[in-house]
């Protein structure tokens, strides 16, 4: 509401500052400790091309920051942001607070694409073969789900969720078959499915940032319409909105964002489910306020988890496992608290 816009802006500023601070702190953390001041100098120097500032920093530190850590850190932040954003959009379109970016089978499609690539043609299209197959799998699954739900009498929330469940079940069988065929090479598929940000590159950073950024712009443009769609299709159409078209645009946008995230990082659960839940408690359900904070909080959460597994825990735990381990109990807590409040 207009009177609360100041509060909403404050939430966004606090989260943005926290995310930027975590990026700086996390870049310094790891096997080679780098003081935050050095990290900031390196970032400042690089951004504004200040060679004199960069020359004062050890080469080892520069390589660690720019070649090893930042691609992974920025990918983690962007993937988390993308998952938080698409989770919020999915929950809004499907009118279901339990929906997440994977409800429509995007993750199963990506996993099937990646499994096929890893099993049959791991190097067909160079180092990005798995990424391309995963992305293609996710997109094809999305269109299969949309066409299935449209042919079942309209893209209603129930039809979409049911179509997602059907397609996911079929693809899961396909993934199991791939694992069975892989025999001793099964670990490659399993590790991909567990999710990892370890081998992120600057190309991936650019790709995820641009897709998430573009997706955010589109979703924010339709945020007010998304609020109104929550009133039901018939009422929405009397307020000047085409519910079918708006739903389709948002569905495709949020799915593409999720598809790129999953293709880059593997399957990372709970971020897309949990973040919009937590943020709704903070901002209320208005998507104009919810989408920006879900984006920022998603980035913060996944970067936090990735930093934990990379630099704090004695041994690296796959990021997908860690988010589920932390997210599951936390979700139970949120759920219990809400039940008690009712």
């Amino acid at each position, binding site marked *: *509401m207009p009177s609360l816009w100041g509060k909403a802006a404050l939430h966004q500023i606090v989260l943005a500052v926290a995310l930027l601070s975590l990026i700086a702190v996390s870049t310094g953390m790891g096997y080679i400790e780098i003081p935050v001041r050095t990290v900031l100098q390196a970032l400042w120097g690089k951004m504004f091309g200040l060679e004199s500032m960069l020359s004062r920093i050890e080469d080892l530190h520069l390589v660690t920051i720019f070649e090893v850590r930042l691609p992974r850190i920025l990918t983690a932040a962007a993937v988390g942001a993308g998952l938080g954003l698409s989770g919020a959009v999915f929950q809004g379109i499907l009118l279901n*607070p339990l929906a997440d970016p994977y409800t429509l089978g995007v993750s199963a499609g990506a996993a099937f694409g990646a499994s096929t690539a890893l099993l049959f043609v791991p190097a067909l299209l160079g180092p990005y073969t798995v990424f391309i197959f995963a992305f293609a799998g996710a997109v094809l699954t999305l269109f299969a789900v949309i066409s299935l739900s449209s042919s079942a009498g309209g893209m209603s929330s129930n039809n979409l969720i049911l179509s997602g469940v059907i397609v996911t079940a079929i693809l899961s069988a396909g993934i199991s078959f791939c694992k069975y065929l892989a025999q001793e090479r099964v670990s490659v598929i399993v590790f991909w499915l567990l999710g990892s940000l370890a081998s992120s590159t600057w190309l991936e950073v650019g790709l995820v940032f641009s897709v998430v950024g573009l997706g955010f712009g589109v979703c924010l443009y339709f945020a007010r319409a998304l609020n109104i769609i*929550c009133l039901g299709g018939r*009422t929405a159409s009397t*307020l000047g909105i085409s519910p079918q078209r708006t739903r389709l645009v948002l569905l495709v946008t949020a799915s593409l964002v999720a598809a790129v995230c999953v293709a880059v990082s593997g399957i990372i659960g709970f971020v897309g489910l949990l973040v919009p839940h937590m943020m709704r408690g903070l901002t209320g359900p208005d998507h104009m306020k919810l989408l920006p904070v879900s984006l920022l909080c998603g980035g913060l959460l996944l970067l936090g988890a990735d930093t934990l597994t990379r630099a704090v825990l004695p041994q690296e735990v796959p990021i997908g496992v860690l988010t589920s381990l932390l997210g599951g109990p936390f979700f139970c807590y949120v759920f219990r608290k809400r039940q008690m409040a009712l």
Partner: protein
Amino acid sequence: MSVFHLSKAQYSYPDGTRAVEGIDLAVEPGRFYGIVGPNGSGKSTLLDLLLGYKEPSSGRVLFRDKPLSSWRRRDLAREIALVPQEFALTFPFSVEEIVFMGRYPHIPRFGAPGPEDREVVRRIMESIGIAPYGDRSITELSGGEKQRAVVARALAQETNVLLLDEATSSLDVKHGLQLMHLVRQRQARHGATVVSVFHDLNQALRFCDELVFLKQGCLVRCGPVSEVATEETLERVFEVRAKSYLETSLGCLQAVFWTEGEETLGADA
């Protein structure tokens, strides 16, 4: 110029079942129309045709002399508002947020609500008596309070035409009457045109200027209440025995219904 003009309007479901057929109707400005008929007579479908939510399978639906389908959705949203029958929300929007949604057709795509929008919302919330709980979540409200918020949302659209789909059917007697008085007041003050589907025939007899009787998707009769609400029409449409009488305390027609068997039982007693 009629507000709506329907000629031979027909709507069939994808499986070919006809919901309404051969509807010829002119809705005149500033009048309160009630659509009545038994269950499955096509009342809500007729309303959907007026809303432009459904397109006629054949025939024409004109709004201000232009086919409804040729209107831009956003322009139409500044002309016609709907108060739906049910209102289920998954997410806990506040009452004020819900009322603000009525301003959507007036707010530019990239703009925020302006001072004029805020003033309209404030005025309407006060006039409907929901201002004190503007910050409360709609999911926490009682049925009566919730429906008032929904009416406020429709009024915030500031349209000349208001359509209601059994808007009082989920309310108790008191809240139902309050809501109808509110709509009637609005119609009298602003010269708005109202078309409402009614479940309760006596409510329709009391508040409407004109009645549209539907049966099995066809228009049986339509015209001023005092002319068309005859016992013969009521019996034909609802397939029960009916008696209409002038309720002097309210100054309007009311009706009582009974079935053939009941009449005999009454005589026995």
